[in-house]
């Protein structure tokens, strides 16, 4: 397993809500690559398009959501021919789901059916996708999965209401891993849990990732969580990705004023004290997006070109740290496990802001 080989690459994805005159573009021209064995964090305010992106790329968006353009290329890890998820037929899509990509939904702990035992619901998945498996093998697999996420086997015969929220969440994660997918998308899977449980579950997830070698796309508005657990972070605003960087680099030295605002919205546990500023204003109305950079009405550093032209995501020319803002390098938060995070990747970091001279990625 090598980090670096792309497993899922999104190219110029556009997602609309509604069709015709009332269409609202919730995701605009998003390009993003998920590499093998990597945890990619997707952060942004409510309504910035994070969840729409995740559901759009997996074609799980409920009506009136429509994918209006772009490609989502899945690279089978066995070295098979890459294919576009967006052009799969319904049948192929059914095959693809769960086996290749699984999702843990927002409030996933309520996704369990209250009248069935945990084991029944987990066996169900295996029955549907691996019909050749024997009943005993299925049960063994369920046991194995539950122990993976730290639930003892005797909880197998419980009903969902007999488990705590954290345990149900773990069951959902175990279910997501049941078919050993290559990509696991997590859409704010821990928002309903307390911080201790959040941390614990994420820790387990990261460990599992290292053992099983899947990639994770982690969506949250909790940037502090991402800084700690993910390898790379993409920041979304107004349906676009405004900055993408290795977690540590983003934390130490964010290039986009919006990322900077997000980072200054929560306190650091250790290190030098810094002022919490937050971001004034509110997210843009997708029906009436500001011209140019969507963030410019709220941006403290907005200048002439911001209102006129949309900045394009590109690799910054100025070496990071030499940019316009003071470095936060002295803050000691362990970014990610992998030492050489992001190194050797073609696009180490990109930003879409007129403050930074960029070259096309």
């Amino acid at each position, binding site marked *: 397993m090598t980090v670096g080989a792309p497993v899922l690459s999104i190219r110029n994805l556009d997602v609309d809500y509604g069709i015709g005159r009332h269409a609202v573009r919730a995701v605009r021209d998003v390009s993003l690559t998920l590499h093998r064995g990597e945890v990619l964090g997707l952060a942004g305010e409510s309504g910035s398009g994070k969840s729409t992106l995740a559901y759009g790329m997996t074609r799980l968006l*409920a009506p009136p*959501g429509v994918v209006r353009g772009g490609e989502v290329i899945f690279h089978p890890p066995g070295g098979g021919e890459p294919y576009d998820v967006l052009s799969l037929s319904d049948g192929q899509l059914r095959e693809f789901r769960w086996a290749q990509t699984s999702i843990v939904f927002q409030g996933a702990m309520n996704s369990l059916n209250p009248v069935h035992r945990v084991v029944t619901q987990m066996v169900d998945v295996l029955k549907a996708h691996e019909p050749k498996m024997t009943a005993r093998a299925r049960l063994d697999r369920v046991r194995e999965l539950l122990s993976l996420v730290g639930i003892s086997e005797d909880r197998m015969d419980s009903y969902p209401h007999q488990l705590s929220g954290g345990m149900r969440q773990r069951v959902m994660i175990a279910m997501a891993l049941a078919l050993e997918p290559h990509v696991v998308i997590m859409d704010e899977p821990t928002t309903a849990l307390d911080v201790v449980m959040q941390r614990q579950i994420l820790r387990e997830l990261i460990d599992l990732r290292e053992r099983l070698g899947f990639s994770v796309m982690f969506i949250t508005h909790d940037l502090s969580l991402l800084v700690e657990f993910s390898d790379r972070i993409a920041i979304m605003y107004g349906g676009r990705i405004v900055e993408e960087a290795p977690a540590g680099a983003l934390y130490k030295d964010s290039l986009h004023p919006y990322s900077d605002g997000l980072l200054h919205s929560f306190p650091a546990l250790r290190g030098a004290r810094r002022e919490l500023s937050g971001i004034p204003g509110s997210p843009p109305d997708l029906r009436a997006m500001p011209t140019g950079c969507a963030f410019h009405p709220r941006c403290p550093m907005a200048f002439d070109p911001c209102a006129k032209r949309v900045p394009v995501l590109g690799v910054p020319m100025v070496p990071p740290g030499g940019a316009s803002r003071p470095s936060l390098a002295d803050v000691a938060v362990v970014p990610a496990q992998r030492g050489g995070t992001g190194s050797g990747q073609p696009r180490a970091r990109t930003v879409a802001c007129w403050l930074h001279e960029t070259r096309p990625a």
Partner: protein
Amino acid sequence: MAASTTGLAAIGPAGTAPDVTLAESDERRRRFRFIQNPKAATGTVILGIYVIFAIIGPWIAPYDPTQRGNALVAAPSAKHWFGTTHLGQDIFSQVLVGTRGVLYVGFLAGAIATVLSVLVGVTAGYLGGLADEGMSALSNVFLVIPALPLIVIITSALPGANETLIALLIGLTSWAWGARILRAQTLSLRRRDYVEAARASGEKSWRIILFEIMPNLTAVIASGFVGTVIFAVMSEITLAFVGVSDVSEWNWGTILYWAQSQQALDQHAWWWFVPAGLAVALLGTSLALLNFGIDEFVNPRLRDSGGQKIRTVSGAVRMRVGFTPVVRPGDLRPPRGARVPAQQPVDAPAAATITFDKEGAR
């Protein structure tokens, strides 16, 4: 707001003037959305025709329905569109005149039953406790009363059995089912968070019932009403058919009663019973269609989700949960009456080209 106009321009710099008229037409479309549903539209049109005939039927009927003629059991002809009876009466006139009675009884009984079921059902469900017990017992009793035999007995006992009395009797005996459904629905609604919130913020009970609970019951009430109307129409026709109601008052059941008692089938006089039977069937169909339409219209979730079709160059794509359609800009077929993209300047910049596609899509 300046930002909003410029923002719109960013989406479609095709000028703002046409957008205003489009918005207006859109407003109009939203107002007539109920009719846009094909089921609702069909039901409304058929029912509308019935209502018109119920009103003007007796005036436009070519003959007095009881007036005898010389042509006995005559097949349909230019003179008698639906043929004649054994007494030479014009069946077309009988059907026309009979419409009023059928609709009158149907809707009056439906209204009575609906009002009763809402009163009893919602009150019982919302109040709970002893009131609920009592009202539930009452509706259970009414549920087991055999309505039709009861009506037969009462109408034969009372001398002046007219249509209003029959409507009253049908209405008073058929509300219990609706009340049970409404009670069950109210029981589930009253524990919802928004109702609890309303109670916590001090809303009065009547206001909670009227403003928080009732709007959620609209679909159930409406379909209950339509269902009772169908039931009342059927009951009335059955009563007339078995000869219980006053045979001098014309309705479709009376026609069927005479057709049956004169053995129309043996005489091969199909025109005697087919028109009245079809009229009943068609009325039932229109009400059922209306029912479906109301269901989809009242429930915002049913209204917006699913079934929506996107017309593309290669056929229609349906929006459905779990399989988000992929519609690339070139795929969309412009709807009828859309502005022709050729209005755009030829040397449009890149940004406008994207808009161009979107405009064509609208």
